[in-house]
């Protein structure tokens, strides 16, 4: 397109020079007009083409405008030339009378007119083109913009929808979390109440458990304490048995009284016998038997108790305990006593040696100490069992003692001899 325009211009220029050098001017002018028409047609076609193609580059417009500027510059230069000539002081009339000058002026006028026409035509073309271009461009831009706007709008709508969805999800999740929190809070509250209830119940159960343990332990302790002695016996003894004991003692007193009488009678008999010297040997033999029994030179059998004193974990049996027991038994009316089958006689010693070893009849004895007693079993038992009596005392100090009542007990005789060396 631009090339064609250039070609057109080039042609015009060539023709111009020809016009100036050659004559007749009118023909040239006509030819120029013709050319102009053809140029017009060309321009129209080109415009049509332009219209058809609907694309006009800005370059063409720039070229045209630059050419226009050149034209305008030429005009200005000529004007300045003329002004310069005037200032030099050319004689106008002389100058104008010259034929060559007239020709020149005519030509220049023609050229000017032509140039002006061309300029106008070009201007119109340019304006047309530019307006069309404008329209096209505007339309195009509008379309593009509309498309863009539509696309952007659609995009925006989509993004907005998407964002909304995301937000909704977020909000929903937040709500769910909040609901969960509320639920969990309620659960926690309920759990707390439950825990309180359970703890209260557990506390009650624990207290009951502990109290049952305590009560059972106390009952067990009491039973254990009582199991050493038959408590019922002592309870019964308190009133009835003590009375019977008193009566027994009274009877014993009576017996003793009668015995005194007997001994008195015996003394009288001795006195009589010494006078008569009859059957004294018999009496002496009887006396010997009795003294042997009392002194412990014979085995004795009869009813009585077998007591056993035992060392336990807490307390050990002392010789003093045994001595005390023996004394108590003598008081209670024991006839014969043996400790671990060692007969207790008049010279018997019951001592401790080396803090721990118990010696009876100068022989080392070890626990359990079996103490056999022959005598009235009821009296013996009563004397030991009585409240604050021997057994009670022993239990109170934590020593273990037990006894059995037997009908037939055999106590062995004294194994060594009682010697008299100094006394008479």
């Amino acid at each position, binding site marked *: 397109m631009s090339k064609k325009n250039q070609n057109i211009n080039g042609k015009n220029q060539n023709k111009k020079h020809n016009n100036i050098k050659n004559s007749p001017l009118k023909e040239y002018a006509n030819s120029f007009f013709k050319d102009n028409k053809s140029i017009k047609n060309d321009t129209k076609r080109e415009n049509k083409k332009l219209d058809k193609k609907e694309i006009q580059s800005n370059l063409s417009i720039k070229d045209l405008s630059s050419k226009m500027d050149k034209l305008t510059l030429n005009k200005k230069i000529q004007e300045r030339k003329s002004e310069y000539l005037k200032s030099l002081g050319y004689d106008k009339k002389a100058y104008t009378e010259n034929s060559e000058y007239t020709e020149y002026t005519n030509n220049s006028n023609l050229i000017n007119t032509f140039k002006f026409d061309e300029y106008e035509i070009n201007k119109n073309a340019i304006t047309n083109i530019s307006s069309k271009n404008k329209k096209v461009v505007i339309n195009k831009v509008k379309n593009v913009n509309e498309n863009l706007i539509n696309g952007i709008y659609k995009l925006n709508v989509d993004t907005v929808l998407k964002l909304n969805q995301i937000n909704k999800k977020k909000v929903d999740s937040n709500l769910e979390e909040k609901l969960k929190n509320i639920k969990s809070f309620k659960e926690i509250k309920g759990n707390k109440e439950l825990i309180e209830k359970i703890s209260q119940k557990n506390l*009650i*159960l624990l*207290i*009951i*458990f*502990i*109290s*049952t*343990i*305590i*009560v*059972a*332990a*106390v*009952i*067990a*302790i*009491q*039973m*254990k*304490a*009582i199991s*050493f*002695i038959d408590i019922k016996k002592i309870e019964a003894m308190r009133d009835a048995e003590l009375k019977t004991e008193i009566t027994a003692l009274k009877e014993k007193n009576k017996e003793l009284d009668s015995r005194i009488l007997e001994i008195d009678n015996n003394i009288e008999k001795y006195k009589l016998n010494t006078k008569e010297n009859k059957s004294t040997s018999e009496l002496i033999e009887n006396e010997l038997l009795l003294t042997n029994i009392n002194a412990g030179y014979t085995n004795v059998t009869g009813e009585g108790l077998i007591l056993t004193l035992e060392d336990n974990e*807490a307390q050990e049996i002392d010789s003093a305990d045994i001595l005390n027991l023996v004394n108590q038994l003598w008081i209670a009316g024991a006839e014969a006593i043996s400790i671990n089958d060692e007969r207790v006689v008049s010279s018997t010693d019951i001592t401790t040696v080396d803090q721990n070893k118990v010696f009876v009849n100068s022989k080392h004895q070890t626990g359990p100490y079996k103490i056999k007693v022959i005598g009235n079993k009821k009296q013996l038992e009563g004397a030991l069992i009585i409240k*604050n009596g021997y057994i*009670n005392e022993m*239990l*109170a*100090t*934590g020593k273990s003692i037990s006894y059995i009542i037997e009908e037939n007990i055999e106590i062995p005789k004294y194994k060594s001899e009682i010697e008299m060396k100094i006394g008479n």
Partner: protein
Amino acid sequence: MFYILIILGSILGVMIGRALPVIPYTYSIYLSVGILAALDSIFGAIASIIKKRFDFKVFITGLFGNAILTMLLTYLGTKLNIDIHLGAIIVFVGRMFNNLAIIRRHYIELWYERYDRVKKHYSSLNEIQNRRK
């Protein structure tokens, strides 16, 4: 759970009591009186449960408080040479009998009601059978 705990506790208590050293006979009266007080409060608790006015605090304080109080009273009795524990025994045993009577009546009523119900049931069955005949 409750009964298991009670049984376990009693077994444990007996074991502990056996393991502990023997107390002297002269002090056994205190323990016996204490046991009596404990038994009295236990029976009282059962009776109050039947009457529906059981209070746990009252029960526990009675269980230990009465025992300790009676022990103190017996000690005072030994010092004053009066058998005060006899009074305690009379009171506790009397109350125990009262409570036992309450418990007995409650269970008798229960059993009697049950027996009545069973009787009615069987009589109705008999009537139905008779009608069929």
